[in-house]
């Protein structure tokens, strides 16, 4: 299942990862490698812990067992300061709700990481911020406050902010949810464009099969804590895994049953007499 990615060097490797949330097991011996410089879409039914996977790569959650390697360094074993160093220089993440600072305007939001992490002059910061804002097409909105922006614009500002420090790896958590078709098109173009222009390794968590297939080099399909399919969209669509095909085609019934496991329907109805 990973021959297709063997030609590209892995940027992020998940090895034998087990993760529990409370007593519920989210991952059980998960193994997957994300190739450098490519867009990989991580997909799967709701509740399979796709966001959890991103948070483990970012070091916000630690695996109970196994290793999460970013550039061959185990994120789970890093000290707090090493972790912050890694995030500052190597990683960017776009959150589902964007996480823009509501008390800062667009310009200051994008300038935030630069101001915190660098000693650049005000002029340099201005130039860099305007470059990033231009890349997402919002140079004209720099004075606006987050509350005045539309959902699509908010996500683009957040994107500009997460690439402000020129990361090597960028993670998108559900970047398409709640967007109108035009905004969706813009975000798609941006993700693809950034990947091509900067050679960013992009990890994309999404439910939207069509959109993801448009831009992703690889798909990684998760189900019940395991990878059930990894490959290019075409490979998977024509593959022999019924569950993967069900997911990609959006069939209501199949290997993932329509009915949640339950007792026999007739018996269940009969058992309802009051006692």
């Amino acid at each position, binding site marked *: 299942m990973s021959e297709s990615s063997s030609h590209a060097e892995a940027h992020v490797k998940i090895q034998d990862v087990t993760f529990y949330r409370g007593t519920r097991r989210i991952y059980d011996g998960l193994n997957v490698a994300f190739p450098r410089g490519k867009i990989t879409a991580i997909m799967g039914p709701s509740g399979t812990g796709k966001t959890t996977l991103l948070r483990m790569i970012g070091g916000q959650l630690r695996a109970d067992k196994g290793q999460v390697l970013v550039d061959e360094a185990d994120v789970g074993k890093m000290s707090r300061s090493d972790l*912050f160093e890694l*995030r*500052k*220089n190597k990683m*960017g993440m776009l959150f589902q709700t*964007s*996480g823009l600072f509501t008390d800062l305007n667009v310009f200051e939001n994008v300038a935030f*990481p630069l101001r915190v992490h660098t000693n650049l002059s005000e002029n340099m910061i201005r130039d860099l911020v305007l470059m990033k804002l231009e890349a997402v097409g919002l140079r004209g909105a720099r004075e606006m406050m987050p509350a005045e922006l539309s959902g699509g614009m908010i996500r683009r500002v957040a994107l500009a902010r997460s690439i402000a420090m020129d990361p090597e790896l960028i993670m998108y958590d559900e970047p398409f949810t709640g967007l109108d078709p035009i905004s969706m098109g813009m975000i798609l173009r941006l993700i693809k464009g950034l990947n091509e222009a900067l050679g960013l390794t992009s990890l994309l968590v999404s439910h939207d099969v069509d959109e993801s297939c448009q831009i992703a080099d690889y798909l990684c399909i998760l189900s019940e804590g395991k990878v059930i399919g990894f490959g290019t969209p075409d490979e998977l669509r024509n593959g022999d895994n019924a569950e993967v095909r069900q997911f990609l085609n959006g069939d209501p019934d199949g290997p993932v049953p329509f009915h949640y496991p339950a007792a026999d329907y007739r018996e269940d109805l009969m058992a309802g007499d009051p006692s």
Partner: protein
Amino acid sequence: MIESIRNLGRAGVDSVASMGRAGNLFVQSITWGGPGSAGFLDFIRQIHSVGVRSLSIIVVAGFFVGMVLALQGYNILIKFGSVSALGTMVSLTLLRELGPVMAALLFAGRAGSALTAEIGLMKATEQLSAMEMMGVDPLKRVITPRLWAGIISLPILALLFSTVGIWGGAFVAVDMLGLYDGAYWSNMQNTVMFTEDVLKGLFKALVFGLVVTWIAVYQGYDSEPTSEGIGKATTKTVVISSLAVLGLDFILTAVMLGGV
């Protein structure tokens, strides 16, 4: 039966774990410095939103409390023919007890709840996570300046509460009830001790400031990232910190007076 014992046990374990998390938060955020640490300006901004914005409620409340104390005190003391002790009574009550305690309770309602809601909202809108992923430690950036602003602000607010209260008492005693102005002040000056009464009261306020702010930032930071969770956390902040202030007040008073 077994179910309820199990629930009780779980609640116990949860609250111990919660205290552990609160302790961890305190240790990590009480010192300055670290990835993306807040600067002096952030600190100033927080003193503004925590302290300056609580000023009006503190001053108004202090004035009324002082007036009521003088009115009640006058009516009691006049029966014993010792209205000259009114100034002493008003000032000692305010400096030792009501100043720090009332200021802390008002502070919990005004600034504490606002802190919890603000931090809870930052968490729910993933601003804290975003910060973390930008290599900025939210504990150092967000919590530290707020914690210190609370520690610094409450003693000042308590002091202002007492001051306004004493002058409010003077207003009632001297201007409304016609007490001789010198009797109000000179008796007070003879009895009130700067270190014993003023400084010990300030120390109480310092402790309350620390505890109330700590509870507020912890509840915000640990809240469920939903609007319902933030609402619950805000209520918890006010309830827990009010009780903590009253309980601690007894302990501190007992230790300071050395009577118990």
